[in-house]
């Protein structure tokens, strides 16, 4: 099985750890995680986003996300808003690129037009939440430089520095679970002044097709504002067999209606 191959690579990595620089080791882990998730094809998932402020006041948004796996370049994704009511049907289409800025379009049903967003800015909050767009977009290996930090039980901690100068972060510390197909358990985000800004915890993991780990809950806590955003996912549908045609501007308009 493929998985055992990766594990043996990882084990090999551990054994050969001395010969490897932390940078190489970090990159290797990131690649191993990418490899482990290879081949899911496409997925559809519904999610509920709950925004919570310091006083516990909440606000909810419902979204549907479709993702298409691509290997030669970054993944494509289409997010459709189901609520609040006044943005129902609004949809974003994103082509992530391994190198350079991503492309992003937004469909506005109120004027039935697709608008292209200049996406130099992807460090801002996603619909008022504690997630930045860059936290949610496809995590391509090329978007960071890596440094292995330490092993904590089955967790491998890797520091990742964003390549994009417009990123809101100086670094992220990502905990990979080497026993569970390198799924990510936790990410700590450090802001531009290198102070801990947010922690993202992945819980309620579920194994799909005996290979793909998907977390059922994302909890993002902002330590500086004490605000919190919760993402609750429904079951993933890996059977939809989506194609490139489902991720075109036409599809974007269609998805919104």
């Amino acid at each position, binding site marked *: 099985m493929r998985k055992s191959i990766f594990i043996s690579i990882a084990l090999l990595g551990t054994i050969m750890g001395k010969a490897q620089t932390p940078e190489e080791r970090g990159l290797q882990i990131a690649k191993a995680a990418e490899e482990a998730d290879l081949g899911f094809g496409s997925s559809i998932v519904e999610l509920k986003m709950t925004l919570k402020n310091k006083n516990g006041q909440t606000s909810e948004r419902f979204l549907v996300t479709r993702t298409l796996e691509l290997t030669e370049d970054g993944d494509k994704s289409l997010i459709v808003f189901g609520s609040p009511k*006044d943005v129902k049907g609004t949809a974003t289409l994103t082509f992530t690129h391994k190198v350079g800025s991503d492309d992003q379009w937004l469909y506005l049903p109120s004027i039935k037009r697709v608008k292209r967003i200049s996406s130099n800015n992807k*460090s801002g*909050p996603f619909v008022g939440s504690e997630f930045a767009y860059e936290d949610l977009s496809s995590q391509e290996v090329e978007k960071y430089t890596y440094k292995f930090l330490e092993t904590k039980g089955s967790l491998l901690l890797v520091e990742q520095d964003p390549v994009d100068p417009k990123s809101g972060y100086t670094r992220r510390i990502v905990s990979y679970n080497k026993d569970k197909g390198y799924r990510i358990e936790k990410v700590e985000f450090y802001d531009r002044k290198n102070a801990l800004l947010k922690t993202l915890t992945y819980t309620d993991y579920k194994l799909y097709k005996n290979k793909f780990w998907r977390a059922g809950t994302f909890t993002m806590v902002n330590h500086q504002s004490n605000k919190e955003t919760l993402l609750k996912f429904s079951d993933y549908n890996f059977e939809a067999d989506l194609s490139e045609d489902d991720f075109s501007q036409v599809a974007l308009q269609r998805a919104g209606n």
Partner: protein
Amino acid sequence: MNAIKKAGDFTNNFAKNWAKFVIKYKWPVLIGTLLLALGLGSQGKMEFDGDYHVFFSKSNPELEAFDALQEKYTKDDNIVIVLAPKNGNVFTRENLVAIEELTEQAWNTPYSSRVDAVTNFQHTSADGDDLYVDDLSYESINKTDAEILEIREKALKEPLLVHRIINEEGSVTAINVTVRLPGVDSATEIPEVTIATRNMVSEFQEKHPQFDVYTTGLVPLNTAFFEASQSDLGLIGIMLIIVILVTLVLTRNFFATFSTLVVVLFSIISAVGFVGIMGIKLTPPSAVFPTMIMTLAVADSIHILITMLQKVRKDGLGKREALVESMRLNFMPVFITSLTTVIGFLTMNFGDVPPFWHLGNITAFGMTMAFLYSTTTLPALMAIFPIWKRKTVAGKLPKIGLYHKMGLFVTRQPVRLTFISLAIIGGLAYLATLNVFNDEFVEYFDDSVQFRRDSDFINDNLTGFYNVEFSVGSGESGGINNPEYLENLNAFEDWLNNQSEVVHVNAFSEVARRVNRSMHGDDPSYYQVPNNREEAAQYLLLYELSLPFGLDLNNQINVDKSETRVTATLKNISSAEMIAFSSRAEQWLRDHTDQPMHSIGVSPTMMFSKLGFRQADSMFKGNIIALILISLVLMLALRNFKLGLLSIIPNVAPVLVGFGIWALYKGQINTGMVIVFGMTLGIIVDDTVHFMSKFLRARRELGYDAKQAVIYAFETVGRALVTTTIVLLAGFAVLSTSSFALNSYMARITVIIILSALIIDFILLPSLLILISRKSEATEEVQELQAQVQLDK
């Protein structure tokens, strides 16, 4: 009847025995009190709190309202760094590059959450169906002259920038750094931010000398509070020298001076211990406690020492006997005056401003300890030190003559003096009502403080420092996209912009207009709020998706998208004008919009504007209680109900006179001055006590008539009252040099009050005593036989 006499004998004997005990065990007493002072002092901790929040009690409604607003949006304090290029034009390549660089640097400020500058302003533009939201000037080094000109034009047309980040002429610009202080320990957080900012600014100035740099904002305000505390604490040095000089002049004895110094230092060390034990963090009002304690404590020692030295020098008593006699004569007066002072300071707890609770409590504790040390350490030390006898001093007669003459002057015309005094007091009392509260916190600092100078520059050249904020609700989730709401918000924005006090308005309706225009190919005729809810909501979604880290709308839109924050930046206006402006705005909302949009103006500025009123309201009760308590103490001390009641006149009049004169001098009073009634009452009552007790003694023991008794009182305590007044005036004069208005104004009016108290006690009080005795000569005579006077020298 005999109970009173017995009580009198008891205190007499108690004081005598106390003195004998202290003299006998002088070394153990000295060492014991030394250990007590050092023990307390070892618990001492001098921590400062500069956070402006310290001025507001937890239950302060303005603070609660402001906190609620900050919880809804973002809690932010800021630092405004203002750059004035010497060439008078912000928009040159060199200057823009420098601004970009400083903006980049500013992100490294500890706790920073947002940095707004002219260069990173998120400019929205349209190109066909593409929406561009980008920095107004990114990588300015590569910009052509034409592009820079374009940037200038865009910036000077941008309502969000002009009068906030850039002035109309484009000659002065600001970088606004928003910080989110965790608020766990402001004593370390604020200095951390300040040091980082100062280093950043000085490095910038070294590298780019073409700019003049000014700094203001809430963090620098906090720092200014912080530094005011420290510099006011430093006034103790000057006070120390004054204490040494005054004591030396009055006692003409080195050892007496030294002992006084020991007593005041012990008192201050103990108070410092109290600060540590209670975990009080010092603020500008409370940081003056050492000077206060020193001023007030020195009086205790001086009374005891002067009597003792007089007994030695004039009456030829031995050191030990003189000491016992002085203690016997002074124990009760020192106790009573300490008690009234402590009561006066404790009434500050009735107020609504925590730093004054601290000042009151620390000083009350220090004064209690000063009483203890004056009656233990002081006699013990004097018992140890030798007394060098000098020849009896000649030339005392003219001094006695002076006070004698004053007595004669008053006794000749009591009726006329009473009328003139009451007329003057009445007139000034009327003037006192004309004072208005003004707590403009920038003006708390005088021109010697950099923060004040910088803030003034920024007020004159760029924007305002004061603001009022409104959280305007729509009444439903997502309702801020409702066209009706947007129209009303827009109208409110326009109304605010038309007010003469307003420098700049930041409202969500401006964002809605701008995005609407961009969604319609930058057509200026679409620079209006969208007229369709879905459109508005979807445009907002699009716009929010386009904003970078730290420049989002979370600081002006709540989570639920049901409310938005409107910020009106104002000119330098007084507290009264501020409150009037805010209620006008609140009224406008009530008149023109539905209930959910009604809102109350809040901001640090508003909090300070109402602070004086709040403090005055809450202190009113405290002042009445102080007056009653102190009058009661006086009645007990004098053992005379009528004179106790009469004492209210000379005790209250100086405060009326003080505020009356203040109305002529400044006309504006601040929060710091509200406490002076209770505080000065405790202090000036001493004059009345001393004068009245001597008057009574002359009447009761010596059988003088009222006029003779007045002259006797002048002769015996006139000089003592003048000297303690001089000490007090010196102390408060030192405090009045503070660069911080809450302290300096308080000290200045206290100087006026203490001085007028002396004048009133020398003119009105004796006149009243004569007038009152005339009417009731008969009843007085009965009492004469029974009374025993303890308040003696």
